[in-house]
């Protein structure tokens, strides 16, 4: 079996991820930060160490500004709904996933103005398209770091500069890039960074987070939920300090124990090493696909940076037919259709039929790419 669906969830994981989760269940198991006993402190240390390593990975000075969530979608919802009020205006791109589009469309109904900067049919964004949509009431710019459909990187550092110049908040959806492409909160000018734990950070599903930058006053940001935090229990009001303000209820400590080892793996390998390897894989795939006459690929350019995700279509078969042939005849697992990103498909001209998406990962091998190319040659 060949797994090419890493853009949805990475698999397999480094073995130490699973081992840490088993160790947590066997030897720790307790509720973090809810008591002073040995096991509670052990559990709290897992959350703390994970925050510290994530802070190192994203260049965050104060690790208490990293909030654990269920996934990147929850992080994006927290950032948007916690900061945008009726009367505010927000700008995003046409390459966004529904994790951004759906909460924005919901906020739009509640009186938040929304502008969408169009991207090219290659999925590229010209930062000027963002800048010219800034209004007097614009509060935030939201961008995906890389498209989950075409793997195209958006120019976040340039847009980060624009955001800073105009005193706007900048939210980046790093679901596809956290762990597989360098991210620097300071250099890239990011105020809010939403990431998933189960993709290129190699944690289990049910892990993710939001980094809340120093420019954000957390006291003015509204939590999605309130509840027990293990702190200030004498008060019935939610704490105003981080991370407790946004982390009510018992967390997914067993999942975060796995995530900790995933992040450690990324730091040990090096994000750049991971990116360069994945980049070499995607280049082999793209160059091979370009030689198959009955296949059209989307958004690829040899001359610019790209993550290890790529979309293509057969000129004779639908994306779901291609995917089912690949699975049934060759044991290749990928994803056909719209990938939760209708706006991105409208941008690249593949709506509503969608595309076949290969989401490659760090554990894929050259031979698997060669095999898949041979398979596609015969399917056509």
């Amino acid at each position, binding site marked *: 079996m060949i797994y090419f669906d890493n853009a949805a969830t990475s698999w397999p994981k480094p073995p130490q991820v699973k081992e840490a989760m088993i160790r947590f269940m066997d030897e720790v198991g307790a509720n973090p930060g809810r008591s*002073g006993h040995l096991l509670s*402190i052990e559990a709290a240390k897992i*959350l*703390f160490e994970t925050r510290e390593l994530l802070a190192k990975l994203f260049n965050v000075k104060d690790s*208490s500004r990293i909030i654990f969530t269920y996934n990147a979608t929850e992080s994006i919802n927290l950032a948007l709904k916690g900061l945008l009020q009726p009367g505010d205006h927000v700008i995003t791109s046409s390459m966004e996933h529904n994790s951004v589009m759906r909460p924005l469309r919901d906020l739009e109904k509640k009186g938040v103005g929304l502008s969408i900067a169009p991207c090219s049919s290659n999925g590229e964004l010209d930062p000027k398209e963002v800048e010219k949509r800034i209004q007097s009431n614009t509060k935030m710019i939201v961008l995906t770091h890389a498209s989950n459909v075409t793997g195209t990187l958006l120019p976040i550092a340039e847009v980060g500069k624009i955001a800073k110049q105009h005193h706007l908040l900048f939210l980046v959806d790093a679901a596809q890039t956290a762990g597989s492409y360098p991210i620097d909160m300071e250099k890239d000018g990011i105020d809010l960074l939403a990431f998933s734990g189960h993709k290129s950070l190699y944690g289990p599903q049910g892990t993710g987070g939001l980094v809340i930058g120093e420019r954000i006053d957390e006291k003015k940001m509204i939590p999605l939920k309130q509840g027990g935090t293990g702190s*200030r229990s004498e008060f019935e009001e939610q704490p105003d*300090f981080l*991370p407790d303000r946004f982390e009510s209820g018992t967390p997914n400590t067993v999942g975060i124990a796995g995530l900790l080892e995933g992040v450690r793996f990324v730091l040990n390998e090096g994000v750049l090493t991971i990116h360069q390897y994945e980049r070499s894989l995607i280049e082999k795939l793209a160059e091979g696909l370009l030689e198959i006459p009955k296949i059209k690929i989307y958004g690829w350019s040899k001359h610019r940076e790209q993550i290890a995700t790529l979309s293509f279509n057969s000129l004779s078969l639908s994306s779901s037919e291609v995917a089912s042939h690949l699975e049934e005849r060759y044991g290749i697992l990928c994803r056909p259709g719209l990938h939760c990103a209708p706006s991105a498909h409208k941008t690249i001209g593949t709506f509503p039929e969608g595309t076949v998406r290969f989401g490659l990962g760090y554990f894929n091998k050259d031979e698997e790419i060669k095999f898949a190319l041979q398979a596609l040659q015969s399917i056509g």
Partner: protein
Amino acid sequence: MSEQYGVILFPSVHFALRAEKRAKDEGFKIKLIPVPRHLSSDCGVCLRFPWEQKEILLCLLEREGIRVEGIHPLE
């Protein structure tokens, strides 16, 4: 003569763990211990430190932006 200790209480366990890590890095003789019964702090742990190092330790915590809820001498 036994050494005089004090404890620092924190608003949450995250701050307690961060204080422990930073203070250890700086060579302070500190230890995370359960909060003594006559004091109260939700997160359950506090940082025990040699009382004579109180001022420089508090300076470090302030520099690191670590919130402190209370400081008490240990009997």
